[in-house]
């Protein structure tokens, strides 16, 4: 009964703090459009894409130098060999010059508009506050200046011809650069250069689309209310305290949480279930008496201690392990980051094992003894009995044990905060096994990390409560699913 009341109160307060997020975020998104940030944002994306290409070129340069140094050349020789490459890179970088300066100017202008709008809002709020307090004279003294977005934005929109000119130059420059054949001093990297060229071609193809978008952009186009929700649920960026625009998209955090949890379960499920099978079916009573309390003791270790262990011991050792020459055939090795999803996942697995173990063992023990006897009496070995009778018969219990373990893992905070690396980005899933060695940030981690630092009632504060609410419902859903599995697939044992 008390549990239900507490659950109700938690839901109520999370909602009270979090629900305000949506109108505030909507306002935030509307301002993004009204003040022209969206317009300039499209151009910024274009320059940002160029910067990414430029970075990959720099990366290629560093790799080549490394390769040449390894091959026994001196630093000077390596630099000299790259002379042609460097001119190429400079040309590529310079190509975007016009567009970059235009975008930089416009960025200043629109952020200034946004700032004005904010000052205006703050002034309004202050006046209202003073009026409420009954200080009418002071309230009248607060100056407010309404922002005329249309007039403010006119000079920004007027730069469209300048933009088309800048893009034309960029396009021309890039085409010239592309035409130029380039032979890399380190031949094995030639395919990477080909790859780069293709990326540039793809980049050029996006130009007309961007131009079309800019042409059709209207500052007064309405932002529908549901954008507030979708930008939260499907937003791919979580950016706070930005001079430009704050984004509160849960996807990178959700992806991080899921990645860490999946790693944890991949480790914990086989270990936990096998340990349960071993203890309930194979172990001598003395062994079982020894193993059970020790496994269950793991869950008593404070998670901050585990996190400390992860930072000080596990992360470093895993990194050193990946530097072994014998493992260098794995493309992702050696790994760059000590703290990553795998480190956190491995520790979370440790925390999930007791849950999975205890519940699976209960499920196995609840199978009547006569199933086992029937199987043995037909000439089955122990392994056959376990695999063909015991595990299938207790599968619903094992599945629900795994789900509850999942719930335990996804709600865990301290370990992921300390060990997951805390980089807010959707992991790059194209990296194969390297994906699991990327630093990630999680939903629980971000709440713990940022909630202490935000001003009460701000959009950021509300957004964190929304993340909490999301976690809360996720946990409820997982528990519900676990119970449903048990109820629905429980085999009636005659």
């Amino acid at each position: 009964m008390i549990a239900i009341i507490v659950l109700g109160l938690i839901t109520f307060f999370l909602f009270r703090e979090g629900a305000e997020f949506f109108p505030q975020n909507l306002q935030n998104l509307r301002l993004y459009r009204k003040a022209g940030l969206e317009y300039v944002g499209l151009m910024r994306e274009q320059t940002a894409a160029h910067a990414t290409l430029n970075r990959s070129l720099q990366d290629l340069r560093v790799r080549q130098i490394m390769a040449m140094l390894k091959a026994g050349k001196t630093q000077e020789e390596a630099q000299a060999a790259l002379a042609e490459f460097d001119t190429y890179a400079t040309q590529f970088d310079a190509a975007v010059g016009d567009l970059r300066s235009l975008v930089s100017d416009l960025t200043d202008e629109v952020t200034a508009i946004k700032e004005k709008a904010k000052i205006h809002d703050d002034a309004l709020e202050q006046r209202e506050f003073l009026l409420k307090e009954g200080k009418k004279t002071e309230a009248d003294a607060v100056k407010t200046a309404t922002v005329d977005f249309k007039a403010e934005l006119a000079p920004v929109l007027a730069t469209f011809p300048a933009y088309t000119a800048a893009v034309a130059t960029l396009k021309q420059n890039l085409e010239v650069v592309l035409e130029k054949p380039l032979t890399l001093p380190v031949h094995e990297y030639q395919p990477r250069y080909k790859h780069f060229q293709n990326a540039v071609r793809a980049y050029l193809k996006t130009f007309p689309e961007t131009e079309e978008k800019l042409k059709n952009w209207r500052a007064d186009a309405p932002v529908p209310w549901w954008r507030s929700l979708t930008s939260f649920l499907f937003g791919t960026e979580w950016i706070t305290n930005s001079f430009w625009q704050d984004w509160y998209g849960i996807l990178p955090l959700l992806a991080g949480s899921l990645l860490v949890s999946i790693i944890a379960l991949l480790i914990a499920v086989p270990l936990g279930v096998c340990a349960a099978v071993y203890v309930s079916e194979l172990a001598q009573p003395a062994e079982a008496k020894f193993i059970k309390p020790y496994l269950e003791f793991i869950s008593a270790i404070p998670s901050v201690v585990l996190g400390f262990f992860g930072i000080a011991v596990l992360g470093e050792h895993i990194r050193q392990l990946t530097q072994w020459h014998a493992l260098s055939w794995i493309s992702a090795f050696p790994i760059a980051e000590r703290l990553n999803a795998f480190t956190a996942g491995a520790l979370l697995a440790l925390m999930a094992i007791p849950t999975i173990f205890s519940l699976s063992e209960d499920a196995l023990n609840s199978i009547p003894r006569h199933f086992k006897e029937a199987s043995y009496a037909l000439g089955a070995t122990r392994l056959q009995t376990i695999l063909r009778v015991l595990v299938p018969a207790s599968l619903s219990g094992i599945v629900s044990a795994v789900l509850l373990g999942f719930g335990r893992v996804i709600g865990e905070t301290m370990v992921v905060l300390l060990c997951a690396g805390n980089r807010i980005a959707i992991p790059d899933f194209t990296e194969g096994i390297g994906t699991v060695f990327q630093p990630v940030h999680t939903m629980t981690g971000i709440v713990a990390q940022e909630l202490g630092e935000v001003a009460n009632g701000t959009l950021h504060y509300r957004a964190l409560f929304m993340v909490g609410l999301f976690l809360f419902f996720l946990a409820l859903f997982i528990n519900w699913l676990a119970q449903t599995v048990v109820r629905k697939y429980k085999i009636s044992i005659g």
Partner: protein
Amino acid sequence: MSTSQPLSQEEETAPAQPAAPASPNAVDVENLDFYYGDYHALHGVNLQIPAHKVTAFIGPSGCGKSTLLRCFNRMNDLVPESHIKHGSIKVHGTDINGPNVDPIELRKRVGMVFQKSNPFPKSIYENVVYGLRIQGRNKRAELDEIVERSLRAAALWDEVKDRLHESGVGLSGGQQQRLCIARAIAVEPEIILMDEPCSALDPIATSKVEELIFDLKKSYTIIIVTHNMQQAGRCSDLTAFFYLGRLIEIDRTEKIFTNPTQKQTEDYITGRFG
């Protein structure tokens, strides 16, 4: 002769049986002393069970008849700390506690039906073929044939032929027990041990199982433990009476029920105790 080591079934012994001398008896028990830990459960039991007959074990609860039955397929191996201190058990002339005997192989030759019907939570079909699948026999046509033959032999075919792929747990108690019998005979054992197979069944289901036992004795040696004196009288050829871990008397069933040699047997049968 002493083979008292607690054999467990993960022993990797060769399944090959040493060539058994022809014996008219399915089971020979000599001087068997059996212990659960310190508890002396069977005292010097000597017993011959002929092939292709139904032998009933009767006696009050705790007299050791189920223990003896479970010695025949070494199910007692699963009970921790149980062991044979003296004596031997031979099945068709082979000492089943010998060092070269794999209990897994033994249990394929000596099937068992339990007191409580215990079909697996699988389909009827999968229940019957379980013993074959674990031997690695997976050919569909062969399995189909054996399923039909076993279910017919267990007098269950007509009742379940249209729902072979439904759960075996959904059957009635009597049907479940006959399914367990079908499962036991699917692997074609030589001997079928039945541990109070009818104790949980109603009279109609019981009579069906008894008829079945009568049919099965043509092909199998059957040893049945029962508390039901009428049942022993109705369907067995031989009856053995146990009391406090000792075999008191074994003889033809008519003889035991009409003119037992031992006073204890007579007292038990006439209902003076037990």
